[in-house]
């Protein structure tokens, strides 16, 4: 099994989720994060005090998938999260050694 982690623009979340469902992805976990990258942050001025906010709001999606689904999932995210503008985000894939569903104690791909 693999964990696909994607950091994307917040307003693309629903699109990504909708793109994953047809592939049989039954679950995913989302966190609000802040991203620092090539995309410039903004300068905010409060009564003359300037703060450069380098961190931009992003959304991190974590989805555990079986090995044979990884390519499709990555491709689906690539398409649905794409705007072509700087700051679209990244996808990282890493290995999961074990997965368990808490409710049923199923393990492995059955747990996803």
């Amino acid at each position, binding site marked *: 099994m693999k964990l696909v982690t994607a950091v994307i623009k917040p307003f693309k979340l629903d699109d990504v989720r909708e793109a994953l469902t047809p592939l049989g992805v039954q679950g995913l976990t989302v966190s609000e994060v802040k991203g620092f990258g090539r995309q410039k942050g903004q300068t905010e001025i*409060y*009564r003359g005090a300037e703060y450069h906010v380098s961190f931009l709001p992003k959304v991190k999606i974590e989805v555990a998938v079986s090995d044979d689904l990884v390519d499709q999932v990555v491709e689906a995210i690539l398409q649905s999260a794409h705007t072509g503008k700087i700051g679209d985000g990244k996808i990282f894939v890493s290995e999961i050694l074990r997965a368990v569903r808490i409710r049923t104690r199923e393990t492995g791909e059955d747990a996803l």
Partner: protein
Amino acid sequence: MRTTDPVNFAFSRLRLGALAAALPLLALATPALAAPPPPKIDSGDTAWMLTSTALVLLMTVPGLALYYAGMVRKKNVLATLMQAFAVCCLVSITWTVIGYSLTFTTGSPYIGGLSRFMLGGIAANIAQGTDIGFTLGLGSSNPTVTTIPESVYMMFQMTFAIITPALIAGAFADRMKFSAMCIFMVVWSLVVYAPIAHWVWSPIGWLNTLGTLDFAGGTVVHINAGVAGLMCALVLGRRTGYGHDDMSPYNLTYAVIGASLLWVGWFGFNAGSAVGANGRAGMAMAVTQIATAAAALGWMFAEWIVKGKPTVLGIISGAVAGLVAITPASGFVLPGPAIVIGVAAGVGCYFAATSLKHLLGYDDSLDCFGVHGVGGIIGALLTGVFAYAPLSATGTTPATSGTAGSFAQLIIQGKAVCVTLIWSGLISFVLLKIIDLTIGLRVSRDDEVEGLDMTLHGERIS
């Protein structure tokens, strides 16, 4: 009653009452008799002053509390609310015990007496439903007769005594010890606020007899608090991380609520300073609204032009600057000049808060001096320029018996401003130094970094 000849004014008011209705000629014929019969209270004037008192309390809690709390970082929001709330409680008691007596009993030109210690005697005139109007400066050569009970006058003035020190908290936000703050505020209200208020508002106060015009507290409240705040900023030093850390406001929504309630409450502050529900109160309310709007737009457009965007913090800051500047002028000027005062305050305070401060390098966190000090000075001086005589007239020849703006009056206003700057600056500085040397003024660096909500009060907003 901030008029130059209040007795006549009060007497002409009296003609509206049932008693005077019976003998209007006599009342007019003998305005300066040594012992006039004590005036009945007027229920309409009293109603407006009760309301005004509620409005001015609303300015401090929750108005000012939210205005300031909305500008600090999340970790200091509750501590900032706490400052305003605690000052409100502390000064209420101080005022009851001795502050009111020192400020508003007749005493000398420099300080009042002790006759109202613990508010003793304040209920003397309300028995039997035949309430008697309060006379300010009773027994002096220049008494001011009002048509409201003394209890109401005392309460209205208490709310002024509360908000003035509470304003100072903007200067030392995020770093002052709560215990030190409590002590500073209580003592300050007695050794700085009480005397200055007496000088300006007691009919025999020395700044009053000099001819100072200050309808609702440009010098007494705003310049006074502004310069005390500046001293706090200087003595305490800058916030840790100043110029490096992100100190952007946690939630400006609170600041907008706060500024809005300040605006609404200020109607009590300024129109209430007419001590009655009359045409002067109406004009004071009108110019308050107009100057505030003008100042808010002044700051907003200045910022829009200079920085490219109109900001929410900008427009509300401008509104507060306008409210401050119109305060001393509110019972003396007409709508046209109110616009001028507003624009001057909005643009002036914008530059004071955004440029001057950074130029000079002190960290007046929430611009207590930049808005209240500078706005108060602009307002106090322009009152001397724009005063329209009939508004303060008390005799039968309005154009001459009131005080009109003039170069001479501008000089008088300038003197009052300087006196306030010096007294408040000096005494505040000494007071801060004494507290610093004894119990210490500032929280530890670690506590400051962790935030005052948790370290001082053991609470947090989640």
